[in-house]
């Protein structure tokens, strides 16, 4: 069957180009054809054959389809470099686009669209118009894509000539492939445009879902991808859509399956019925697992996506952990991703099996994989409290193998385990110290030094051990130097004897005089001063209790996760980065409007999480201020902020008011953790502002059968950096009892990166139950400070001084302001102060002032007809980026 085209690659000695030229102009058809093939062969290997342009184009007028295709291919490659000559081809193109043979008509249009020469584009319009209405579906499906090509070259032209309308008409075409290509073209055009061009109505949606059944596999991908942007109106519609998409999960094409999964996950956000959600999760699991029997490259894509999916819906694959066990011959990139997912799926139920696997991997050949396996054991220990001991014994077994990099990796993770479970597993320190001299990597060294410093009082020869490191102090990397400095200070504070005293002198001298690393120098100076002025204070600072850490190093920020889930199957989901982070093409304006049209769904988040039902683990991680990632050596980072606090006379405890109202009254608080989810523990909470301070007003009700105690609370990083200013003080709760508390809060403590949102994620634990996670919405009006009242003159001046670009306005069409006085009073209780009122035609205009934290002024103008629905609100502030939240607050206050 095979042909022998390779002969066209062979060259003759005689000048090649002239010879080809001669052959191209031969009177014999076959010779001409062979010549064109030789030209294409030369082009393929990278020779420049553009000088033959005219001669090749002359061969274009032919009956022979194969030859025609070759000439067209040549044109696509060289037209750009010969724009003036390319015009020679136009006539043939136009003629071909009217050929009786539909294959030739389509070929002409397809090729013309690939030639990005202005002059040719002009001539493309008429043929394209005809082809969009061609009788033959093959021509129409080609023309549909051609519109997208033309839009890429000249968007205006497409809009002026009405091609967009023709393209939209094709969505109703009776041929499924035409429909699919038209959808693909429209979706791409929409991606690159700032105007709404392709809006999916429920009507188009249902039409396209019907078309799915008859489309080719690729067409199904186009349609599913385009539809995944559709936001269903309510849970019922979402359920309907999902029902029609689920059959696609059985498709043999992995792209169809992933696009269907994407669409189902999007719609699931809206579905409230836990049964339906559970059922869908059950249906999605097998197809996802099946993807792992595809080619390794596809497995890799699938695994990266599964990583995202289990972060949002951990239940989906909770029972399938075995399929992620690594095969000996899996490529390394597949093994690494499987490991990551195994950690995510590890639970008390399967941890024994998982540990056996990890141990097996830790003896394999590939060093990176072995390291990751060891780290995985540590991360499981941090994640699963009950399994920590078993994890540690596996780590100790591995240390005994005495493979250098295994030992080092194990020490790094054991340091994290000590952080997580202080005063629990210190008995193993002796074993660790045996491996001291094998450490040569900075991170492992730093970890070991931290352990020695932290537990100096329990290690008899701690001073000797540290001293052995000190000899090489000046040569060590900064990471190790910082740890050595802190560890020596700790040692000195714990054992203030002569040996340590000498050591500290050496270290401080070294760190202050002989280094040019500012971090090291500054830290040394602070320790020095602290030690010389008040050793007791130094003890409080350096040996302060450290906050508990959690394993979050590989969990994504919820808002990023949302964005990535919309992008399942695409590059974005493989990189775990939003598209803007790696796509450099500039349609930033387009991107922006799109975001506005499709809010990221963060508002629905809290309801969704509850809908997830009991046992749904957190979708995100919880870190504690100061942000100490478990992977970084924590000892040094922890004391520093406290230290600064002390230096600046800002004792944290002074912020907490002494006279906490015992039982704050007020309207009932919204329930955030219903008793059904919290194993009988019900928590209601809301942010409030009292006496110039933000509190978290919480109500705990114990409906379970056991007394609950040891309550602790953590807040995840959030846009406003809200964090607890003191510990949660809840006494033991007997069954049936309830307790209220006002937890003082501080701002700007643990700020999250990424787009601003009003989600506040809370983690709460007690001694009897698992950790509970719930979401609250940050009520922005609690941030308005008491000193927001302004004089009229100041108001006017501030208004004028701010540029107009800082003014943002929004309409609340449904809100009615009934009584003016009542409204003014209500706003005043939330620290929005009335300034003035004026009449403008039949409308009343009110002016208010307020102040945001850090003294940022906020000016508000409300325009309305009193008693009628519709309030227009305009605000002016130096921080207009907060406007979304401000409007939300205004709306809430006006509505209540």
């Amino acid at each position, binding site marked *: 069957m095979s042909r022998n085209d390779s002969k066209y690659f062979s060259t003759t000695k005689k000048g090649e180009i002239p010879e080809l030229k001669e052959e191209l102009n031969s009177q014999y058809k076959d010779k001409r054809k062979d010549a064109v093939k030789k030209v294409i062969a030369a082009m393929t290997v990278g020779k420049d054959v553009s000088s033959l342009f005219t001669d090749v184009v002359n061969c274009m007028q032919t009956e022979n389809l194969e030859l025609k295709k070759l000439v067209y291919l040549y044109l696509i490659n060289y037209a750009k470099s010969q724009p003036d000559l390319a015009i020679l081809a136009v006539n043939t193109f136009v003629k071909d686009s009217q050929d009786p043979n539909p294959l030739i008509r389509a070929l002409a249009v397809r090729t013309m669209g690939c030639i990005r020469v202005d002059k040719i584009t002009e001539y493309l319009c008429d043929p394209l118009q005809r082809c969009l209405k061609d009788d033959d579906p093959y021509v129409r499906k080609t023309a549909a894509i051609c519109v997208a090509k033309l839009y890429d070259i000249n968007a205006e032209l497409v809009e002026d000539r009405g091609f967009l309308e023709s393209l939209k008409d094709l969505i109703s075409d009776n041929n499924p492939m035409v429909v699919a290509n038209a959808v693909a073209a429209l979706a791409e055009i929409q991606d690159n445009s700032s105007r709404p061009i392709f809006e999916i109505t429920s009507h188009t949606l249902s039409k396209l879902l019907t078309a799915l059944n008859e489309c080719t596999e690729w067409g199904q991908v186009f349609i599913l991808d385009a539809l995944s942007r559709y936001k269903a109106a309510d849970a019922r519609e979402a359920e309907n859509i999902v029902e029609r998409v689920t059959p696609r999960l059985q498709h043999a094409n992995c792209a169809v399956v992933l696009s269907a999964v994407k669409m189902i996950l999007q719609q699931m956000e809206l579905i409230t019925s836990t049964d339906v959600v559970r059922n869908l999760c059950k249906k999605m699991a097998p197809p996802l697992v099946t993807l792992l029997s595809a080619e390794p490259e596809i497995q890799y*894509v699938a695994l990266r996506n599964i990583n995202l999916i289990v972060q949002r819906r951990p239940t989906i694959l909770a029972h399938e952990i075995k399929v992620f066990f690594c095969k000996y011959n899996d490529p390394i990139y597949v093994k690494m991703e499987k490991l990551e997912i195994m950690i995510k799926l590890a639970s008390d139920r399967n941890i024994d099996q998982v540990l056996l696997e990890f141990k097996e991997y830790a003896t394999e050949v590939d060093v990176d994989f072995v390291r990751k396996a060891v780290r995985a054991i540590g991360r499981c220990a941090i994640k699963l409290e009950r399994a920590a001991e078993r994890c540690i014994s596996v780590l100790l077994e591995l240390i005994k193998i005495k493979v250098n990099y295994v030992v080092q990796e194990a020490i790094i993770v054991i340091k994290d385990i000590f952080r997580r479970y202080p005063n629990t597993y210190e008995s193993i320190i002796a074993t660790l110290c045996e491996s001291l001299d094998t450490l040569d990597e900075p991170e492992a060294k730093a970890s070991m030094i931290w352990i020695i410093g932290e537990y100096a009082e329990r290690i008899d020869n701690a001073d000797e051990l540290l001293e052995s490191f000190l000899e090489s102090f000046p040569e060590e990397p900064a990471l190790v130097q910082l740890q050595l400095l802190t560890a020596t200070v700790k040692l000195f504070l714990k054992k203030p004897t002569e040996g340590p005293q000498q050591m500290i002198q050496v270290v401080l001298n070294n760190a202050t005089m002989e280094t040019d690393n500012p971090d090291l120098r500054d830290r040394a100076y602070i320790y020095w001063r602290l030690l010389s002025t008040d050793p007791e204070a130094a003890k409080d600072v350096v040996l302060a209790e450290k906050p508990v850490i959690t394993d979050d190093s590989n969990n994504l920020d919820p808002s990023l996760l949302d964005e990535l889930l919309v992008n399942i199957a695409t590059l974005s989901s493989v990189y775990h980065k939003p598209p803007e982070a790696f796509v450099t093409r500039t349609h930033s304006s387009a991107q922006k409007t799109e975001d506005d049209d499709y809010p990221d769904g963060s508002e629905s988040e809290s309801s969704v999480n509850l809908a997830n039902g009991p046992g749904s683990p957190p979708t995100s991680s919880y870190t504690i201020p100061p942000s100490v990632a478990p992977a970084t050596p924590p000892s040094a980072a922890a004391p520093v902020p406290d230290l600064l606090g002390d230096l600046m006379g800002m004792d944290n405890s002074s912020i907490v008011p002494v006279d906490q109202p015992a039982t704050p009254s007020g309207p009932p608080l919204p329930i955030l953790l219903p008793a059904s989810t919290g194993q009988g523990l019900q928590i209601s909470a809301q942010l409030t502002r009292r006496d110039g301070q933000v509190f978290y007003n919480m109500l705990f009700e114990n409906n379970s059968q056991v007394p609950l105690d040891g309550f602790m609370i953590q807040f995840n990083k959030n846009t406003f950096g809200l964090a607890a200013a003191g510990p949660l003080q809840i006494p033991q709760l007997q069954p049936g009892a309830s307790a209220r508390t006002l937890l003082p809060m501080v701002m700007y403590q643990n700020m999250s990166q990424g787009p601003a949102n009003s989600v506040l994620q809370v983690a709460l634990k007690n001694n009897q139950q698992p950790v509970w996670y719930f979401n609250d919405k940050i009520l922005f009006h609690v941030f308005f400070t008491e000193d927001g009242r302004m004089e009229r003159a100041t108001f006017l001046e501030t208004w004028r001084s701010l540029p107009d670009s800082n003014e943002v306005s929004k309409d609340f069409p449904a809100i009615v302001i009934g009584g003016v006085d009542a409204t003014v009073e209500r706003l005043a209780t939330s620290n929005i102060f009335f300034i003035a009122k004026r009449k403008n035609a039949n409308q009343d205009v009110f002016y208010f002032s307020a102040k945001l934290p850090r003294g940022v002024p906020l000016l508000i103008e409300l325009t309305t007809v009193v008693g009628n629905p519709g309030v227009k609100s305009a605000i002016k502030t130096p921080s207009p980026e907060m406007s979304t939240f401000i409007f939300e607050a205004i709306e809430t206050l006006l509505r209540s």
Partner: protein
Amino acid sequence: MPVAASAVYFLNLRGDVLINRLYRDDVGGNMVDAFRTHIMQTKELGTCPVKQIGGCSFFYMRISNVYIVIVVSTNANVACAFKFVVEAVALFKSYFGGAFDEDAIRNNFVLIYELLDEIMDFGYPQNLSPEILKLYITQEGVRSPFSSKASERPVPNATLQVTGAVGWRREGLVYKKNEVFLDIVESVNLLMSSKGVVLRCDVTGKILMKCFLSGMPDLKLGLNDKIGLEKESQLKSRPTKSGKTIELDDVTFHQCVNLTRFNSEKTVSFVPPDGEFELMKYRITEGVNLPFKVLPTIKELGRTRMEVNVKVKSVFGAKMFALGVVIKIPVPKQTAKTSFTVTSGRAKYNAAIDCLVWKIRKFPGQTEPTLSAEIELISTMTEKKSWTRPPIQMEFQVPMFTASGLRVRFLKVWEKSGYNTVEWVRYITKAGSYEIRC
């Protein structure tokens, strides 16, 4: 965006471009140089199939001695791109009659250019069914359906078939004898611990079909799977027949199968493509019959000697037999000398892969041959690290046996002309990744 590619490159192992096609303008023609310098010539190669270099991302796959590289600059659909490559390679193979390698590409470059133009437009995959494409993209080129030459038999409405709802079968097929061949091919994947505990075990099966049927037949396939049987008895309101039923964890179908009908009625109904194709794939984890058990004992006697005993037990019917059984037993790198006895087949030491390779051509059921070997090692002072014992790997084929127990219950063929068809069914079980840790 479901765009799958801005450009496709076929490179040989040296990195020379064999053929390429630019579909979109957003990547430069020389982007492949970046691939060559940043991936092919570095240790990166093979560490990750998706890689970003500058503003472009590269997806690559190696197939025999060819790298297929896709370049994009947008947030492309990676799943779609890789699947496209897989399908395109299958298409090329079907055109070249088998092999896909550097030579095949060079020998068919005109054809490949033609196909690349047809199967993808502006980065969007189009119809890749070999069946249909062969209607109008032919070996000799001139045999186009609309050719003016009278001697050629024009294929009617090729374009309608490319885009039609049954985009995988052409009309007007006539066979003297109407036949269907069904092959049920199962791969058993096993991971067993050294103590004989099954850590992971599953079967991935596929049903391969070869159809030589006239006209536009409608086919319906019945298996002994649980859900299908239950649904059937529901519809016909009679109790399920007793007998073994199989629970399929997951099924995926060729695009010819009507998925919506499968979802509602649980029947597999389809209009098949002509010739050979993969009808469905399935996966089973429960109730797998393992055809072989392997019981290894490996003793390290001091620093320089090892004793290896491996017993392999066939647990399928005594009348059946397995073919091409190969057992690879790993030994340390510093193996100096081996001596062994086997009760069946032949064994030898292969130093290139550090394994004892034990081959048994024909392996009857219910037997248990053993291999016992003594291995002498070169004693090395430097070798501190203990030997990491890779798993024992096994290859085999067992005809007329399915590890899952799956059986075809019926295959019905309807065609409006009402002809009779002959159906043939074969079963075979192969080793997938059959690993026993030791």
